[in-house]
């Protein structure tokens, strides 16, 4: 592993226990955050290692651009690193860093406006064995339907990009990343009702855009 060359964040503050983060170990996070706040830069590396893939999925699915995603993610972690001294632990680290990532990505999308370019990641080979893929590509009669994976990927991304930023965010967090309504509401700072309402309208629009794939 590369020798850590980071300097310690400014101030170390006590970490207060917060709500558990499903899918990740909140206790482990608290320990890593406390160590990072006390100047252990390897602990911050561990936090990056733990959350890079999850946050990559979030940013990538909101921007549909892999170059922007890698850059934005660097900025997200840089900001988290600078702000770590002020992280009081009122929410979990998981919720906190997700909030940073969502806000920075939304700002980026707004700045870019209509000039967003699409550049897609490769689809891993596991998709062919995914029960959801089999269900989508198999007609109700049991006869297999020819679906080009790349065509499907393109259509899914186009459909996502047609949604408003707010709707795209909830679909990413709920459908793609599997977060619960309550978690999303904490990450976005809106009520659970708002999350559900945005999901409803987003699903209705997606259903219209992807009609030919779900019949």
């Amino acid at each position: 592993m590369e020798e850590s060359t980071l300097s310690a964040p400014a101030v170390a503050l006590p970490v207060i226990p917060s709500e558990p983060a499903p899918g990740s170990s909140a206790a482990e996070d608290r320990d890593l955050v406390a160590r990072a706040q006390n100047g252990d830069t390897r602990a911050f590396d561990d936090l990056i290692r733990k959350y890079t893939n999850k946050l990559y999925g979030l940013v990538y699915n909101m921007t549909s651009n892999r170059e922007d995603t890698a850059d934005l993610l660097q900025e997200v972690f840089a900001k988290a690193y600078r702000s770590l001294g002020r992280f009081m632990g009122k929410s979990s680290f998981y919720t906190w860093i997700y909030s940073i990532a969502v806000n920075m990505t939304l700002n980026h999308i707004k700045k870019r406006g209509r000039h967003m370019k699409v550049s897609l990641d490769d689809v891993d080979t596991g998709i062919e064995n995914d029960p959801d893929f089999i269900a989508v590509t198999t007609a109700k009669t049991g006869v297999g339907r020819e679906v080009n994976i790349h065509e499907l990927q393109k259509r899914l991304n186009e459909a996502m990009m047609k949604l408003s930023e707010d709707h795209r965010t909830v679909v990413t967090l709920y459908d793609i990343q599997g977060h619960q309504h309550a978690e999303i509401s904490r990450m976005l700072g809106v009520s659970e009702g708002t999350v559900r309402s945005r999901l409803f309208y987003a699903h209705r629009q997606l259903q219209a855009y992807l009609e030919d794939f779900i019949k």
Partner: protein
Amino acid sequence: MNDEEFEDIRKLMRLKRHETPGEGFTDSFIKEFHRRQRDVAQQQSGLERFMQMLGDKFEAFLNPKCGLAAAAAVIALVAVMLNGFNGVAPASNQPAQAVSKVEDAKKKAEDPDKLQNKPNGVAIPISDLKGSK
């Protein structure tokens, strides 16, 4: 229910989990993170770092909702200050102001050279009124 009604759409969207940056992304990402942090530490002056820290701290005010609230608060503050400069006392000072007005009126009545208003609005000295009797 929303989830059941849109289950097919949700199945389709879940397929996006298979879009990944590829193996080795995390390691190269961490190396790049260290490189950028080193560059920042070398290039930024103390003032730039201070400004960035301030920017991070007050970024919430750049949010449109917070910005509106902050603008409203500033307008309210300016309005209160202007009121103060124009001599309009706050409500809590009104009784004291009323007492001072009564005292002023008494002083005027005792001073013969002061003007007194006639019902038609034309002001003449009190001494003139005495002389006309």
